């Protein structure tokens, strides 16, 4: 934020009157600290913003933000405010605070302070104009800083979650020699389908699999692009010597696939995962037998 500091230094040198005005303004805001804070809190509650937070929490945040805000106005350095906004975002994002609420709250403060300046200087309109000339650019910059910090923090959280989902989303599980299971949970998009193909082929090679059961019970819907990716994945598996059995096609997805006219002739499909595993075991010449009777009330 060196730019901010040097800009303020420039202001101090070239436009001394502005500098003293700013100081007067800051002194005014410090002097009327309590009523202005209360007014701000009241407006926040009235606008039904930050409803997920308790009144005490709102008050303590209001105090901290107000102090930071006035400091930023005085020094022209938004570094501290930026750090505080980032920290605040980290705390409130998990609780479901929305972007419009944060922006609303900051703009309310700007509004509350501007009104108090109007009141103070309303006798002298040319002075009021000069005060606003000093106040508004600084206030706008602060509003932008807080908004951007919040959005950046949100984006960071989203990126983090996306990468977590990517890592978790396609486990390739070996259940028997030469038999793999790929349970797919959640919506499929083109990039996830591509990643799935990669994982599938890698799994086939690493485990020397002959049969793979792909279970899509947990997939809510499939579109044309994803369906084609699935077909390609199945074909590619075939080129690596592995057969694919698809299980858990819901009635909706099955209808979609038929409606889209996807060529499914090379896909073998079985109703549920259990059936799929049984079919795979049959193809690999496994025989699973039960070694005794199950006692009622115990396992199973």
């Amino acid at each position, binding site marked *: 934020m060196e730019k901010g500091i040097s800009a303020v230094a420039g202001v101090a040198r070239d436009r001394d009157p502005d500098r003293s005005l700013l100081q007067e303004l800051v002194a005014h805001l410090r002097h009327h600290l309590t009523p202005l804070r209360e007014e701000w809190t009241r407006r926040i509650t009235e606008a039904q913003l930050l409803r997920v937070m308790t009144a005490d929490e709102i008050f303590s945040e209001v105090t901290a933000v107000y102090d930071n805000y006035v400091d930023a106005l005085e020094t022209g350095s938004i570094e501290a405010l930026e750090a505080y906004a980032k920290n605040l975002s980290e705390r409130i994002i998990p609780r479901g605070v929305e972007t419009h609420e944060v922006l609303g709250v900051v703009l309310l403060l700007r509004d509350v302070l501007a009104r108090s300046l109007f009141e103070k200087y309303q006798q002298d309109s040319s002075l009021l104009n000069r005060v606003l000339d000093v106040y508004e650019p600084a206030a706008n910059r602060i509003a932008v800083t807080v908004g951007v910090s919040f959005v950046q923090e949100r984006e960071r959280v989203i990126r983090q979650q996306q990468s977590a989902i990517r890592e978790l989303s396609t486990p390739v599980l070996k259940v028997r020699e030469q038999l793999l299971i790929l349970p797919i949970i959640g919506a499929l998009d083109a990039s996830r389908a591509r990643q799935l193909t990669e994982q599938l082929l890698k799994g086939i*090679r690493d485990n*020397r699999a002959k049969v793979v059961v792909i279970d899509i019970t947990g997939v809510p819907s499939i579109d044309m692009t994803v369906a084609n990716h699935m077909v390609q994945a199945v074909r590619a598996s075939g*080129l690596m010597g592995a057969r694919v059995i698809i299980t858990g096609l819901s009635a909706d997805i099955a209808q979609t696939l038929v409606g889209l006219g996807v060529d499914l002739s090379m896909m073998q499909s079985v109703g549920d995962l259990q059936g799929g595993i049984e079919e795979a075991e049959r193809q690999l010449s496994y025989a699973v037998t039960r070694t005794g009777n199950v006692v009622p009330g115990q396992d199973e």
Partner: protein
Amino acid sequence: MAVSILKQGDYLIASVQSALTDTEVIELRDALLAQVAKHRSRGVIVDVAALDIIDSFAARSLTTVARTNRLRGAKTVIVGIQPEVAVAMSQFGLRLDSAHIALDLEAGIQLLTA
């Protein structure tokens, strides 16, 4: 030619060592067909693990070998297709109909002897 064709009992093993030009693909195809006739082989394994690309011409030639061999009572197994090659082939809709496919040489021999 960058392909060596080895006789192993009733089977022939053709292992491709490096990328093939179209001419070399034709040579491989003709050599395989001739050798199968000469040794009265019951199966042919073509190992393509060294290939980074299998284009439509190579795929069609392999299919031709497989079909011709089948008419003579010999099985053809293509082994060692790399994952990236498999993805590319499926994207371009290339198939190896009438050939058997296995993961690697070992799985290919298993498939023939089973």
